[in-house]
């Protein structure tokens, strides 16, 4: 067969219908005329000849149908007819259609949104080529397998590792904080040095310019820099003329050669870089020399299994550990972790939970659509009976009904996909920390395919039951019987089963939403113990890598004086109310865990407490109340030793009767480590408890407060410090002035990038944002579900009332009371609601536990089933009564005249 000719024939028959039909008619007319002439010539009268010709050849007008059938367009024409019919019936019954389409649009929209989220977060979160083969090698301490560590390598080690057989490509990187200089104030910038194979390793084309290439290694490293998208937006306002300009870093000039696309945000483990530099710039003359410039990311060869790669690389890294035993745990093994793993662990359950929610919503939408189609179908039995009597086969009627429901579902899908684009972004906005920074939502082919599939499935799902039911032959009899419509029992039963199911699912969703909201409310109401409003945290990293600067802060006294000087300068900034040093001490979850000893208590139990290094202004700045005793004074603060303040939890643990003051504690872990950390003379010695403060959250917003010990920050000082700053108004707006104040102490001293508002930190808290995500989304889901269920209920009662108008008229005429009529009209629906509530309640008790575990709500396990049931019951009754009232209020005569 010649396919081109076939398609051409179809094409003309479809697109140029009129002309093709004219030609077919002209041709046949010619034939008829020629035949007639011949018949006349052979002796027939003209009339006779014409009649015979027409009899043999058929009507000219029906020839078109023969033509279309002959070239194989029959199915197309029939389906087209069904489609037109479907569209017309949507148009003719706007209320029905709006509810049906909206039911599916909500379900399909929400499910598509969730799928695009899952696609962006779990299926395709990384922009890298072959990202499923990229591994993050993790060192697992065998004595404490929960503890994951990464390792860095020296140059010879890196070369050894890159020769491993299972490795296709090895990336080495090193995160370093640099400073943008050359402008008015120094600015902190997160740099990542990348081995020069970066471009081919990632396989991500640059948005502008180019990425880091092997030639950048020449001459001890070319002074070039590639920008991260967000940094480019922030610092250069997305200026595309930036390529070729210079960026001054630590007083050296670098040429900007490229900007990476938005999806590239290497990497989440050590912090996303603002800028990327060639690794060769970290040469031996870097001061102080960085001995461990290579943290690895590994791209495995395609045919290598993770197990065999693990084995090979483990052997190599064990060798490294023999060279530098102090850098590795005593017993460990290497594990290659696909880079997606951390996110699967963090977000897998969240997404599963949300997916369960949207699936429920979709099912409710489908059921609703089914109910509507069935209810409407009851009113359409006459039409279907006529079709069937005219010779439509059952399969033809099923097809027509299915196509009608597909028209509804595809219309719904179009609306749903449009809505999903917005919906899918909601989780990112509500819970930004839960997702890889590289994933962002876009509508693409797989997602469109998914929603088309969803539309198909839901169209068939909600259309099939009604189609099968309504196409049955035995339903054809209404046409022959009297005009009054008797809805079949089976049809009604089906509707009521569907209603009960829908109510049950809605209840399940509402109860889950109740739990989510309850948990979030609980979280919101729980006292923090400190006041985060108008407080921000600002950090500085001192210049330990520059000998001149280093000498000025090397000794403990110089360093504490420097920190105090910076603190005072910040305190003078107009609008700042109070400033406290709070190194690693900003609530709700910073702090360092150490074991401690209490003088006079057996040292046997290894109890841990949170240790905070703070200045004496800390408690007043964060508004944490002093319960008893006192806070240390400035001289004690500078000395660092022999004083400590504890929180209430700590005091209650050991001195429940309130006599904690005066006892002695000791923290052995506060010993000096490394050359960069300065400690007080007796940092691990005994300290007297001089004060007890009230509890402030220190283990996240939803966990009980841990026992805490506060010591002066001068006890142990790394070359960085953090400040909690309380301001009069919006704190971050003072950042620029504070930056200037810090630079006035030492002109090169920048403040670190991560300055943040403490209120925002709570919003970003993993548990907090997760609970908020659940409560908002499930609130939305269950509201949608409730509206759908009510719309379904309302329309079912309305339809059944409309069908029984005459019956009600008779009843009224015979003296039935209106309330009785109301009850008759609504009772079947009421009964199914009651059944639905019961089933839903049981399901919630059975499945709810699982859902709540997934939600991870620790705060309150309260059940919201009763509240949800009552709310749903009231709404459902209202819907039934409102729909039924229309009839009950009809006048008997009018009702009787109705037919």
């Amino acid at each position: 067969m010649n396919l081109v000719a076939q398609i051409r024939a179809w094409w003309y028959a479809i697109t140029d219908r009129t002309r093709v039909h004219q030609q077919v008619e002209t041709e046949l007319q010619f034939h008829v005329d020629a035949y007639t002439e011949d018949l006349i010539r052979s002796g027939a009268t003209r009339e006779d000849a014409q009649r015979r010709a027409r009899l043999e050849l058929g009507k000219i007008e029906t020839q078109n149908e023969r033509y279309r059938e002959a070239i194989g367009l029959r199915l197309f024409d029939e389906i087209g007819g069904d489609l037109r019919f479907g569209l017309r019936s949507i148009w003719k019954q706007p209320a029905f259609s709006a509810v049906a389409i909206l039911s599916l649009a909500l379900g399909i929209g929400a499910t598509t949104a969730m799928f695009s989220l899952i696609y962006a977060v779990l299926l395709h979160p990384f922009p890298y080529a072959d990202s499923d083969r990229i591994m993050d090698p993790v060192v697992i301490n065998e004595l404490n397998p929960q503890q994951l560590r990464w390792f860095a390598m020296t140059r010879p080690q890196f070369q050894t590792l890159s020769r491993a057989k299972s490795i296709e490509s090895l990336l080495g990187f090193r995160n370093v904080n640099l400073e943008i200089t050359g402008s008015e104030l120094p600015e902190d910038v997160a740099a990542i040095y990348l081995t020069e194979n970066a471009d081919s390793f990632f396989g991500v084309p640059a948005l502008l310019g180019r990425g880091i290439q092997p030639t950048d290694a020449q001459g001890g490293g070319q002074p070039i820099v590639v920008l991260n998208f967000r940094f480019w937006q922030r610092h250069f306002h997305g200026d595309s003329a930036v390529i070729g300009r210079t960026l001054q870093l630590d007083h050296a000039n670098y040429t900007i050669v490229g900007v990476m696309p938005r999806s590239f945000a290497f990497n989440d483990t050590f912090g996303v870089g603002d800028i990327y530099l060639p690794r060769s710039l970290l040469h031996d003359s870097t001061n102080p020399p960085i001995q461990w410039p290579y943290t690895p990311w590994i791209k495995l060869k395609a045919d290598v299994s993770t197990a065999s790669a693990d084995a090979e690389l483990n052997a190599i890294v064990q060798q490294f550990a023999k060279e530098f035993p102090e850098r590795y745990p005593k017993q460990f093994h290497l594990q290659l972790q696909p880079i997606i793993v951390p996110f699967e662990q963090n977000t897998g359950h969240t997404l599963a939970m949300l997916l369960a929610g949207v699936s429920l919503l979709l099912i409710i939408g489908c059921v609703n659509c089914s109910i509507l189609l069935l209810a409407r179908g009851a009113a359409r039995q006459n039409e279907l009976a006529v079709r069937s009597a005219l010779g439509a086969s059952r399969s033809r009627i099923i097809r027509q009904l299915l196509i009608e429901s597909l028209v509804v579902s595809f219309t719904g899908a179009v609306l749903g996909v449009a809505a999903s684009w917005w919906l899918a972004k909601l989780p990112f906005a509500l819970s930004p920390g839960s997702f890889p920074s590289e994933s962002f939502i876009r509508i693409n082919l797989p997602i469109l395919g998914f929603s088309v599939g969803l539309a198909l499935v839901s169209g068939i799902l909600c259309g099939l039951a009604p189609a099968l039911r309504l196409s049955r032959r035995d339903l054809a009899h209404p046409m022959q019987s009297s005009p009054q419509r008797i809805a079949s029992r089976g049809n009604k039963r089906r509707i009521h089963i569907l209603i009960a199911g829908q109510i049950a699912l809605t209840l399940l969703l509402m109860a889950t939403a109740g739990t989510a909201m309850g948990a979030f409310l609980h979280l919101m109401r729980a006292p923090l113990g400190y006041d985060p409003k108008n407080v921000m945290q600002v950090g500085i990293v001192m210049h330990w890598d520059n000998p001149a600067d280093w000498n000025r802060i090397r000794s403990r006294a110089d360093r504490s004086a420097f920190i105090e000087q910076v603190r005072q300068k910040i305190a003078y900034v107009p609008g700042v109310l109070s400033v406290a040093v709070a190194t690693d001490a900003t609530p709700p979850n910073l702090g360092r865990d150490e074991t401690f000893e209490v003088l006079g208590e057996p040292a046997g139990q290894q109890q841990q407490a949170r240790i905070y290094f703070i200045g004496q202004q800390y408690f007043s700045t964060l508004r944490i109340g002093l319960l008893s005793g006192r806070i240390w004074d400035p001289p004690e603060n500078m000395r660092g030793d022999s004083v400590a303040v504890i929180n209430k939890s700590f005091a209650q643990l050991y001195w429940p009767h309130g006599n904690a003051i005066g006892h002695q504690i000791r923290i052995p872990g506060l010993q000096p480590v490394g050359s960069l950390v300065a400690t007080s003379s007796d940092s691990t010695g005994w300290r007297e408890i001089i004060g007890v403060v009230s509890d402030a959250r220190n283990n996240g917003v939803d966990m009980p407060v841990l026992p805490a010990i506060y010591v002066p920050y001068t006890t142990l000082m790394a070359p960085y410090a953090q400040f909690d700053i309380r301001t009069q108004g919006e704190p971050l707006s003072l950042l620029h002035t504070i930056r200037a104040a810090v630079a006035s102490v030492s002109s090169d001293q920048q403040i670190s990038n991560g300055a943040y508002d403490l209120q925002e930190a709570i919003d970003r808290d993993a548990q907090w944002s997760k609970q908020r995500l659940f409560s908002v989304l499930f609130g939305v889901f269950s509201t949608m579900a409730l509206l759908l269920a009510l719309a379904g209920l309302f329309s079912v009662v309305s339809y059944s009332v409309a069908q029984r108008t005459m019956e009600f008229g008779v009843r009224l005429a015979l003296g039935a009371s209106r309330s009785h009529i109301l009850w008759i009209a609504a009772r079947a629906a009421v009964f199914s609601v009651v059944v639905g509530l019961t089933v839903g309640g049981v399901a919630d008790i059975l499945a709810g536990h699982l859902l709540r575990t997934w939600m991870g709500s620790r705060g309150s396990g309260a059940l919201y089933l009763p509240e949800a049931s009552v709310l749903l019951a009231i709404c459902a009754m209202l819907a039934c009564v409102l729909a039924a009232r229309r009839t009950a209020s009809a006048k008997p005569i009018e009702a009787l005249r109705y037919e």
Partner: protein
Amino acid sequence: MPNLVELPQGALEILILKAISLGPLHGYGILLRIQQISGDRLEIQQGSFYPAIYRLESRGWITGEWGESENNRRAKFYRLSPTGKRQLKAESERWVEMIGVVANILKLSAGES
């Protein structure tokens, strides 16, 4: 009058191909020629004649062109396309072979089986 023969499935199409292989013809002409060649012994269902032509045309075996008929009216003339020519050849061989086989079987007398 000779006995009328009803055409088996698919035969009409090959007859149409054969008829126009001798020269372009319009629909009525094809019908006449088939009847003429067969000595008016073929019963051609009017209802299935045009659909067969439409099918052949949509498959690209024959191509139609509008022209003037012998009595100066617009008529559609069909001619064989290259595909049609090949098809006619292949189909003819198949028919002849099949007829030969069937005929041979039918010719067998009882004793020979």
